[in-house]
């Protein structure tokens, strides 16, 4: 890719949505996600020479760099971060309780809008899941990576990856259920 402008453009075009999605799901903030995505590609571009195909796929390499930047960002902003309450989101969805909507799977005239609201609530709840569980869940459920790839990205054993995924999912459900009870 040395000096090949079209190859780099193609790479950015193919990967920037996935990188942005990962950043957005991890931070829950579109502005931070946009800045972090640019930082990720800057880092990728400056470290292209260090990419080794024998050590993993390009996707795993990019995901690893993204994850490392996200963890750095998380630690940097730990004290400044203000976790917003989930109450606002729940109060805005007045027509049908989200858990009922999820279990009933009924079709409503405002399904699309309600789905967006639910996605917002889940996103806010996901931002409150502990970071080590959150990253495992995101990589598995949103990035469709297999356990081996996740283990490579996170640098932990595969069994630990599975354990964190299960705990992260359970924690997310607990957070949403707890908030639902508070609203009701």
């Amino acid at each position, binding site marked *: 890719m040395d000096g090949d402008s079209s190859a780099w453009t193609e790479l950015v075009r193919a990967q920037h949505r996935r990188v942005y*999605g990962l950043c957005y799901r991890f931070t829950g903030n579109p502005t931070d996600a946009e800045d972090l995505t*640019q*930082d990720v590609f800057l880092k990728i571009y400056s470290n292209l020479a260090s990419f080794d195909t024998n050590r993993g796929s390009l996707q795993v390499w990019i995901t690893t760099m993204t994850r490392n930047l996200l963890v750095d960002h998380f630690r*940097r902003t730990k004290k400044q971060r203000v976790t917003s309450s989930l109450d606002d989101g729940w109060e805005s969805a007045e027509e049908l309780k989200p858990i009922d909507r999820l279990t009933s799977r009924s079709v409503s005239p405002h399904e699309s809008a309600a789905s967006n609201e639910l*996605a917002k609530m889940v996103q806010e709840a996901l931002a409150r899941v502990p970071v080590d569980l959150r990253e495992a869940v995101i990589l598995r459920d949103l990035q469709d990576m297999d356990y081996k790839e996740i283990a490579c990205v996170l640098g932990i054993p595969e069994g630990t990856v599975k354990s964190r*995924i299960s705990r992260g999912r359970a924690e*997310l459900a607990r957070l*949403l259920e707890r908030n639902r009870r508070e609203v009701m």
Partner: protein
Amino acid sequence: MTERNFNPNSPACGQWEVLLADSLDGLLKPEDEAIFNAHLVACPACSALYEEARRGREWMEFLSPEPEVPAGLLDKILANTGPGHEAGYRLATAGGNVIPIRPVSIPAWQRPGLVARVQRYAEPRLLMTAAMAFFSITMTLNITGVRLSSLRLSDLRPSTMRSYMERQLTMASTPFIRYYDNSRLAYEVQTTMRELRQTTGVGEQGEGEDNRQKPQNLAPGESKQIPVPGNRGQQTDPPQQPDSLAAGPAVLPAINYSDFLETSLISQLRPAHSGGSRRESWERSTVWIA
């Protein structure tokens, strides 16, 4: 739903937890299925975890659509990176030639992320540590007499530092040595006077009460006027004694000459802090001058 935190309380629960992800993702092997289901039925805690994890996985499906990428993000990335980024630094001339210009290196304080990096280390805990270290170093330098403004590279040589430290130690120890020498002189004089006293035998008689009236605060130099033994009574009449000090002569005849000499020397070593009154001092001086 019960509110609890899952903590594997047995190896079976820990092993089952690993299989849980496989089960929910449809990747559970047939040979593990029986073990997984058996434990799921037998362990209430793991059964509750299974339900929560299943619901959590379903919640995550709401986030499966990729978030909308902000407009212009791709252009921003390409503008900041890639070979095209360097093309921005080329200068087109009128003749159609392109003069490449080396990218301007951005100073460290202008690079992105510097402020965040500074903020990370600008915690009060670290700042206080740095401040304490600074004050400690400053105090140490002040105490040792080191001035940074007059410090030269040659001063940092080991031999120079060693000689400097030796000089400082000598200067610090000089007062102590001087004090010790003075004390030694005082003891030597005392011992000499004691020996003189014993030799002359004067101190053997009649000095029981007189010795209690030793002068405490004699002026230096009085020891030159030592009275002749046996004639001490004649020297106790001051020619002109002030009225306020009339009681002086009554005491002085009983004072031993060797006592005067001894205390006079001691008072030289303790100039103004011996505690005696000025009046007594004056009395003794008067006696000896007469």
